[in-house]
């Protein structure tokens, strides 16, 4: 392991560079725009998975409701886009022109008050960050200050995901109901449905993801990062070392929520709609599986895990639609039983020593000692840390 003083070890820098090269060069060259757009959609889930690494992998807070935050971000974006495409001219055939079509279908005659601010793009971009952060803060403060944790917390987040889905579907006139908010066309007059726009959005998405990875890296390399692990392992010891554990948990939960929301907003932009099917229990659990497959201790692993599972999902459900769910279940069981640290764990055990040798070969003179051999079992955390 390298010193914690440096922001990134050579391995970690290499990892970020490889991901960037994959996102910005390899994939755009290898795929047509239809596939690339699909790939971009998968990448939006990676935001959630990276958040889960911090929240669940590092700090031990299992949230089965990250879809809530993904949805909040996605809906904020969708509300703005929907208002922009609902000009009086475009909706002239409605009985009340100038409001979103689904409102008109539900006999609503004026724009609801909470939709009004979403006429502003600045407000919308702020809301994508602030709304989920505030919501996560309220949940976190209510739970963690009362020392609710572990399974109970997971169940409550799951319940919140279910409640939000029911609320969205039930309030059809305000939310678009089960269909969600569809038929989104332009962003500040810029048509987001063209191939060019899809390319640009894909790159923006990739850049944001790399930004989120770097931000996570900063947190994990700070003392706070080690504190997260400490809270997971010995919560009481942290508390009796003078830290307010609930504040640490609230922070990391909000942090993960904001990541998810950014992913959700980019999802809406790239896919062109948002619906409750990305908010509820099933997508929330799927997101945890993405994270687990990639390795819940590694932010890069989470990205690869998300991509792998989604690629498999698309491929298999195109060929054997009825078998996919069994495949997903089998994958999850395999992760739990065979490789608990996911892809990053496998990488650490088999590939990392090789890579390390190559990377350190160039710098041998300045290094006094060789890299320590990867330890197994107890050393899982140490080795996983190096993976980041």
């Amino acid at each position: 392991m390298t010193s914690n003083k440096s922001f990134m070890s050579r391995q970690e820098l290499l990892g970020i560079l490889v991901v960037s090269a994959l996102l910005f060069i390899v994939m755009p060259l290898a795929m047509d725009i239809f596939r690339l757009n699909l790939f971009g959609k998968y990448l939006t889930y990676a935001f959630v998975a990276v958040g889960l690494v911090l929240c669940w992998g590092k700090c031990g807070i299992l949230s089965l409701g990250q879809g809530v935050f993904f949805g909040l971000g996605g809906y904020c974006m969708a509300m703005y886009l929907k208002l922009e495409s609902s000009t009086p001219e475009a909706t002239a055939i409605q009985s009340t022109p100038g409001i979103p079509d689904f409102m008109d279908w539900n006999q609503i005659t004026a724009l609801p008050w909470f939709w009004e601010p979403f006429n502003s793009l600045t407000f919308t971009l702020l809301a994508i960050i602030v709304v989920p952060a505030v919501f996560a803060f309220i949940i976190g403060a209510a739970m963690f200050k009362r020392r609710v944790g572990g399974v109970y917390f997971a169940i409550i987040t799951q319940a919140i995901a279910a409640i939000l889905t029911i609320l969205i579907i039930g309030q059809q006139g305000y939310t678009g109901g089960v269909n969600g908010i569809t038929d989104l066309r332009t962003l500040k007059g810029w048509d987001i449905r063209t191939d060019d726009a899809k390319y640009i959005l894909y790159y923006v998405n990739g850049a944001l993801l790399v930004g989120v990875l770097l931000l996570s890296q900063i947190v994990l390399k700070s003392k706070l990062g080690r504190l997260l692990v400490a809270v997971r392992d010995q919560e009481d010891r942290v508390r009796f070392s003078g830290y307010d554990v609930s504040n640490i948990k609230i922070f990391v939960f909000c942090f993960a929520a904001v990541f998810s929301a950014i992913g959700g907003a980019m999802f809406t932009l790239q896919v062109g709609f948002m619906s409750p099917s990305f908010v509820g229990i099933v997508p929330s659990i799927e997101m945890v599986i993405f994270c687990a497959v990639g390795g819940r201790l590694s932010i890069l692993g989470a990205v690869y895990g998300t991509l792998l599972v989604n690629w498999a999902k698309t491929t298999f459900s195109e060929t054997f639609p009825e078998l996919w769910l069994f495949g997903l279940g089998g994958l999850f069981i395999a992760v739990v039983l065979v490789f608990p640290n996911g892809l990053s764990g496998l990488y650490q055990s088999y590939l990392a020593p090789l890579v390390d040798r190559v990377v350190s070969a160039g710098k041998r003179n300045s290094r006094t000692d060789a890299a320590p051999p990867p330890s197994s079992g107890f050393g899982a955390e140490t080795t996983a840390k190096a993976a980041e």
Partner: protein
Amino acid sequence: MNTLNNNTDFLLSIENLTVSFDGFKAVDDLNLYVDENEIHVIIGPNGAGKTTVLDLICGRTRSTDGSIKFRNKELTSMREHEIVREGVGRKFQNPSIYEDLTVFENLELSFPRGRSVWGALTFQRDQDVKIRVHEIAEMVFLNELLDKQAALLSHGQKQWLEIGMLLIQDPELLMLDEPVAGMSVSERKQTAKLLNEITKGRSVMVVEHDMKFVEDIAHRVTVLHQGKILSEGSMAKVQADPNVIDVYLGH
């Protein structure tokens, strides 16, 4: 209850402390005082309420009645981390250390700086921290093992590490719950030496079963039985007390 104007010269004064769990009084109307620079040992049979007393002082368990004053500040209404910041450190019975982190990181996290979220995010591992960590590691016999993962330490070394994690906070009152349980004879001797050294400039409260060890370190001994004080005083006095021999030492 009027506890406003009974300030004392003691570092810690526990008065009329009671805690009941569903009617069972684990600690019953207890009065206990700890002087500055004193090693105060609490002994007693299983279930006497020894660990509960430590839990009450550090805020892990809430009292039903009574007061705990540390430097004349009431602790019973404070939250755990606030009590720690007042200068009370607590070591648990089983070594509770961060197994996935190195010895250095364990000590660093206990260094009393950057305890807020923002503080932890902007914390710098500067010269002060390094010097202090090395100093403490030297004291608890772990200076050769700073880069070792804590999970790989022996049981005795883990106990020392936790003591070190408390020392780096420089508490005025240090509470140790069975610090030598599970230690080898030589580790026990080293720990006794360590305790005599770290008590300079601070008070230590120890819960312990090992009578030989208690004899080695104790300035004052309190014998608890069913949540009440059975006897108090020097080790020699307590050992000669017929009540104590009857319920505890005799067996």
